[in-house]
């Protein structure tokens, strides 16, 4: 076949071949550069993380022992004692906050996703309300936590005269995590295939039966993720609880008791005492809890995925 | 058009059917002609060449079945392919009549019986003319043209009746020629059946265009029976 080509044509063919070759090389080089760059960014991020955690752990873990975990803080300029009551207070606060925020948040999300559209068609007023509520949730999600704290202080602590207490802190904390729960639940509900709803309604189930029987069970993994995220948020929050929970390191006796969470304890140790090593030790415990929570999210979502896909 | 492959294949098969039709026309004309020339070698050739027509028919049938399987036609396409299947079958049977005539011709051999060559030729020419027009109508899918053709079968039938009576008369007066008279009757019968089958092709043309299957015979075998 080549014999039929003229010299001119052969030249053009050769040039084309060469240019195609160099093109491939150029593309390969630019791809390699991009890959290297991305690798470096990734490594930098990991390095910073390892540095922080490593610093806290190496400096902090020396103070951590069974005694540290089981004795109550003794106060004082040297930050004496352990962290036992702060752990318990943290657990109390998490449970109390979530028992308010979870039903409210999940309920609101169900309304937004499953019912709002339908209701909006019925009246302009409802449509307007829903729009306001949605915008509200979005704005709340972006509000700095100290604002929630000030709000809680102004409304719960002062105006409602609940004082520095688990109750004030729980209500303020609920305001803080409500947007998180609403948004993650909304996302989880939206991720439930429309075909499940159609399938259920097509069988003659009511809307409510559909939501309870099919939609919620399917959305559980997403909702659980949202709740675990909220737990993390409550555990790591300082600003809100600083102005609503007080700072007492005694074990709270009831909802009206003041208290001190782990994060708050870290803050107070660091700012009001000389026991910086204990602050780091408490921080190490906090980081460990957060890590365990993340692990729990991963494991639970894997478990649910497995259960839902039936494999 | 989304159906170009099917359409071009259909046209191709139609052309092949037209070609097969021409071969059949030539065969029946040649067979009748050799009755006149008494060229027995030629008759033998016609007899043997029927296999070519048979092979062509099988090839066409195969092509149609492949189209049915691979294109899954519906409605008019389906009717057209089903009709084609029948038409190629009809053409093959018509060719068998030419073959039959050639065979009888050889059988008559050197016998000096008087063959009504003129009438046979008239029958053959009329039948071929009908076949030719019916195939045109089939390929153009022209139901009006197709509907007019079966009536012309009467001309062939009349010639057949004429030959029939003359031959019976001849056999009565010349009983020693009974065998050959019987042969003559068979030739006439073959030509008459050949023309009858043209009607079937016309029926298919109307089926393609209207989707209706109906009997079109003008005055068929039943009326002939009254002559016996």
């Amino acid at each position, binding site marked *: 076949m080549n014999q039929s080509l003229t010299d001119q044509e052969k030249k053009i063919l050769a040039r084309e071949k060469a240019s195609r070759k160099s093109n491939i090389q150029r593309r390969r080089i630019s791809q390699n550069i991009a890959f290297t760059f991305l690798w470096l960014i990734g490594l930098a991020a990991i390095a910073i993380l390892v540095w922080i955690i490593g610093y806290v752990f190496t400096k902090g873990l020396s103070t951590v022992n069974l005694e540290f975990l089981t004795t109550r803080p003794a106060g004082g300029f040297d930050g004496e004692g352990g962290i036992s009551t702060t752990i318990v207070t943290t657990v109390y606060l998490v449970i109390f906050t979530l028992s308010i925020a979870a039903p409210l948040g999940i309920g609101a999300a169900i309304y937004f996703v499953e019912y709002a559209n339908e209701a909006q068609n019925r009246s302009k007023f409802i449509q307007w309300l829903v729009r306001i509520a949605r915008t509200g949730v979005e704005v709340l999600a972006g509000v700095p936590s100290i604002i929630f704290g000030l709000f809680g202080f102004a409304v719960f602590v002062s105006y409602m005269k609940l004082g520095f207490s688990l109750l004030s802190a729980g209500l303020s904390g609920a305001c803080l995590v409500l947007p998180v729960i609403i948004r993650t639940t909304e996302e989880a509900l939206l991720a439930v295939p429309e075909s499940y709803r159609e399938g259920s309604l097509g*069988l003659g189930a009511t809307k409510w039966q559909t939501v309870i029987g099919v939609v919620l069970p399917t959305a559980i993994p997403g909702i659980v993720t949202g709740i675990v995220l909220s737990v993390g948020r409550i555990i790591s929050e300082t600003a809100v609880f600083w102005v609503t929970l007080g700072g007492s390191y005694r074990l709270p006796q009831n909802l009206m008791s003041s208290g001190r969470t782990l994060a708050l304890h870290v803050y107070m140790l660091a700012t009001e005492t000389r026991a910086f090593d204990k602050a780091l030790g408490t921080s190490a415990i906090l980081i460990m809890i957060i890590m365990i929570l993340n692990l729990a999210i991963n494991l639970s979502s894997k478990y649910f995925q497995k259960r839902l896909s039936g494999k | 058009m989304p159906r170009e492959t099917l359409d071009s294949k259909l046209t191709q098969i139609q052309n092949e059917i037209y070609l097969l039709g021409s071969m059949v026309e030539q065969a029946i004309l040649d067979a009748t002609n050799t009755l006149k020339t008494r060229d027995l070698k030629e008759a033998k050739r016609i007899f043997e060449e029927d296999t070519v027509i048979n092979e062509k028919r099988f090839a066409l049938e195969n092509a149609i079945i492949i189209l049915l399987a691979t294109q899954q036609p*519906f409605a008019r396409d389906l009717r057209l392919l089903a009709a084609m299947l029948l038409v190629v079958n009809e053409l093959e049977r018509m060719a068998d009549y030419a073959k039959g005539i050639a065979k009888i011709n050889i059988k008559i051999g050197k016998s000096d019986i008087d063959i009504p060559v003129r009438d046979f030729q008239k029958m053959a020419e009329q039948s071929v003319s009908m076949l030719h027009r019916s195939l045109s109508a089939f390929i153009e899918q022209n139901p009006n043209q197709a509907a007019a053709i079966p009536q012309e079968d009467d001309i062939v039938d009349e010639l057949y009746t004429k030959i029939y009576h003359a031959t019976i008369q001849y056999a009565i007066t010349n009983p020693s020629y009974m065998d050959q008279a019987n042969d003559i009757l068979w030739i006439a019968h073959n030509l008459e059946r050949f023309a009858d089958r043209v009607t079937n092709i016309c029926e298919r043309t109307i089926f393609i265009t209207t989707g209706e299957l109906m009997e079109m015979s003008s005055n068929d075998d039943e009326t002939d029976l009254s002559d016996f």
Partner: protein
Amino acid sequence: MRSLQSNGKPKITAKNFNLFYGDFQALKEINVDIPEHSITSIIGPSGCGKSTFLRSINRMNELIPCVKTTGKIFLDANDIFTQDVVELRKQVGMVFQRPNPFPKSIFDNVAYGPRAHGLKNKAVLEEIVEKSLTDAALWDEVKDNLHKSGLALSGGQQQRLCIARALAVEPQVILMDEPASALDPIATLKIEELIQNLKKEYTIVIVTHNMQQAARASDHTMVFNMNPDRSGYIIEYGKTSQIFTNPHEKITEDYISGRFG
């Protein structure tokens, strides 16, 4: 009125039925009788309202905001629009385009409908589950794994599970919206075979894009087409054998022989 010369009495009747999405008219003047204990397929070009009409029969369209209808649809002699929608959907089951078993066990999938309608007795539920799965030609394949998730089944099995789930409510009509379009050919044929057996007890209406399927699997065929304003209407309705060999309308002819547009 496009009624059919059929022996069966009409199970579903549409009278001057129109459907609008907001200002857009999706279905125009649908007048049709669907005979009882038969399989009726709905074919037609995309976007001509086949599924919309199907989903009108169990009022599934009401899930979409801004849908309005005029005219009537009757199930037997009852106006479906004055009936309680839950009650209607109990009588008119539906199978969807993609198999959509719930992320529950096979047993719970099939028992879902009866449970939603208030049945609690475990023995009765077990009986219904077995019968429904048997009727859906799935029992032999899953009887040892009823606790397994419905999602662990193959696509074809999932669709048969969905059919079993619909049967468990004991409907009179089963609507199928392209039930085999997501399945492989063998699974498709299994579903078609299954439908043939179901028509003894149920009236089946099936929307399909697959003309061979409509030709193979249905007794009657309804051909939808689009007006110039994109609203859908029935151009031809008749016995499947007639529609696919000798349609009366040129548009039907063009559509089923693949020469549309």
